């Protein structure tokens, strides 16, 4: 098991393995995304209160929920960096930060557009909205911290600590709608009964979209991590060979 762990930590091994994964990921994203978007835009019936605006949910909810997964991932990668000094973990941590910032930013933006219609305001200093905004600034903070510190080792450690500490915000975002009286509604309970609130016709396409966006997240993360591997290992022989092999740039 430890051998496997050490092997997984080898950037070269990850780079070569991800070469094999990427085509599969692209294909599954294409399928899931097409089915999900088609379903969400054309098939999902109008909501009894919101009408067609329910279609915003099929973007907002997947993006927001995956934005919440980014921070714990960064915290885990940070812990591995600090304890086992695994090179790959820090590369992943560095790559996930801008993606997390994008996801959080898009969750805030789509939420604002939705809120403008449903609530009558695009922003409120609501516990859910405020804690998500804090997460956005935490991602920006992690990116800024890394570029502010010259020594890569020190930068990696500082970012890892900030990621671990900042992860405390995630349960606050998640449960804010239950702990406090917020404008944002609590999470929906899905029902298997077709004649009930939140029936399958509402949540099955949502699950398709969530999986599509998860696969997209994996692709985006792998692409950035691969670039980071190339950049940091550019003096090692295997990268030099790879550069010479690469004909069509």
């Amino acid at each position: 098991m430890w051998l496997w762990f050490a092997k997984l930590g080898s950037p070269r091994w990850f780079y070569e393995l991800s070469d094999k994964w990427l085509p599969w990921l692209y294909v599954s994203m294409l399928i899931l995304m097409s089915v999900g978007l088609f379903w969400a835009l054309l098939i999902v019936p109008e909501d009894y209160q919101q009408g067609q605006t329910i279609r915003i949910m099929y973007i907002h909810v997947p993006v927001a929920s995956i934005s919440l997964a980014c921070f714990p991932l960064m915290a885990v990668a940070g812990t591995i960096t600090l304890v086992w000094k695994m090179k790959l973990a820090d590369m992943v941590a560095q790559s996930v930060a801008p993606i997390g910032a994008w996801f959080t930013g898009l969750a805030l933006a789509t939420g604002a557009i939705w809120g403008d219609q449903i609530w009558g305001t695009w922003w409120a200093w609501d516990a859910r909205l405020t804690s998500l905004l804090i997460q956005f600034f935490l991602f920006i903070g992690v990116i800024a911290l890394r570029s502010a510190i010259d020594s890569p080792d020190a930068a990696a450690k500082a970012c890892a600590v900030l990621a671990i500490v900042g992860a405390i915000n995630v349960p606050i975002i998640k449960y804010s709608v239950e702990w406090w009286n917020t404008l944002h509604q609590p999470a929906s309970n899905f029902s298997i009964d077709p004649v009930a609130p939140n029936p399958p016709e509402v949540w099955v396409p949502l699950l398709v979209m969530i999986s599509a966006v998860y696969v997209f997240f994996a692709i985006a993360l792998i692409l950035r991590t691969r670039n980071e591997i190339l950049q940091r290992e550019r003096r090692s022989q295997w990268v030099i060979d790879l550069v010479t092999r690469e004909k069509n740039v």
Partner: protein
Amino acid sequence: MFEFQFSSLSEFLQMGGVYTFHIWAVYLLFAVFISYNLLQPRMVRRHFLLEQKRRAARDEELSSKTKTQN
């Protein structure tokens, strides 16, 4: 459960009429987000490969020059 909600393309683009802008703005932002995060790493990779190729070529030229000088 599997019924089309719109009978024509213009009806689909209208999205009920009242919140056309809101709904399509969200989907447009999503499209921008997906394309940026897939294309940006490709650009970075391309840039990296070009840079490394240039550097390798320069190093080779430099070493061949020093050889002829000696």
